[in-house]
């Protein structure tokens, strides 16, 4: 297809969802993110650890709002955050004096690693960036960042997704595990 013709698009956008689906998705997001916030507030208070990072908001979109998506499956959710966090921490450590290079390498390498390991999960890109941009508290964690908050927070979202998404008749989760 011609280069510019490609930019016109070739098909129509998929259908929207009904009100019931919207309500369930809202409720899932509320409980999932709420659960992470509650655990952080009660178990992490007074420690140098954290559990909530911004990329979990993006994960909530997938695991409560687009639950059939391959990007929203357990392997992708947990694997994507964990591996991207490792990539992000490594990029920060390797390119410490060069913040521009560090963020670009972190995001790009996270994409490549997730694709190569079949764990593509878009919020992982954010998790990698946060490892570089997250400030003193994040940097102090070192590679622990990949376990807490990245993998642990993703695991909480996953548990809520399993318990919650299988309640309504019209939903089931996951499509696959590995």
């Amino acid at each position, binding site marked *: 297809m011609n280069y510019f013709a490609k930019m016109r698009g*070739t*098909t*129509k*956008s*998929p*259908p929207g*969802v*009904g009100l*019931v*689906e919207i309500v369930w998705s809202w409720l899932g997001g509320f409980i999932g993110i709420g659960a992470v916030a509650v655990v952080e507030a009660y178990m992490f208070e007074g420690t140098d650890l954290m559990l909530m990072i911004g990329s979990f908001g993006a994960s909530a979109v997938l695991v409560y*709002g*687009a*639950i*059939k*998506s*391959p*990007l*929203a499956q357990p392997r992708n959710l947990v694997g994507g955050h964990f591996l991207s966090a490792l990539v992000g921490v490594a990029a920060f450590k390797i390119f410490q004096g060069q913040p521009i290079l560090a963020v670009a390498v972190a995001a790009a390498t996270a994409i490549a690693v997730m694709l190569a390991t079949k764990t593509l999960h878009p919020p992982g890109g954010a998790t990698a960036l946060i490892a570089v941009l997250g400030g003193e508290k994040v940097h102090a964690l070192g590679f622990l960042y990949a376990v807490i908050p990245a993998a642990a927070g993703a695991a909480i979202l996953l548990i809520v997704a399993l318990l919650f998404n299988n309640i309504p008749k*019209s*939903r089931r989760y996951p499509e696959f595990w590995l």
Partner: protein
Amino acid sequence: MPETTIETCVPVDISDDDIFEAMRDIPGYLDITPGDFKEVYLKAYQHALKRLARSITVANVMNRDVASVREGAPLKEVAELMAARKVSGVPVLDDKGQVVGIISDKDFLEVMGAGQTDSFMTVIAKCLLGKGCLAAPHHARFAKDIMTSPAVTVKPEIPILEVADIFTQKKINRAPVVDAEGRMIGIVSRADVLKSSFFPEGV
């Protein structure tokens, strides 16, 4: 002429609108566009066709009741048999029942004065021009004199998809089916392959 392959067979012309409606029937957000789904569907259809064609073997579709002749059969007998059975070709067997060649109506045309590429009408035309007619000199000849040898044969266990390729490559319309010892057990024609490729449930 573009080659006809199984890939060029298009299933029901499913539209983006059909897919859109189907996606609406499924609750929840589906992370795929109708266009992508259509592409997946068409490719899956081709794979299904290939799988079906691969699962059907020569043994499933061949004709076991074959008219055949011996090497030493006079051409008159061969022609009579082909006429009686309404077939355009017969395998030629030796004493052990092994296929040594095949005779088709084209072989007859050739000895009656048509060249490799000429048709039946060429022979008629020559006949009407009075250039000597034609079958008479071959009265005393035998099957082995005009047969195409060796014949292209196939094994009963190969998929008909491969047979279709063989037919196309060798430009033939039928192939005797032989067992491990080379003995004929049936014959498979283009029509057999065609019928079973696209209506596999009828096998």
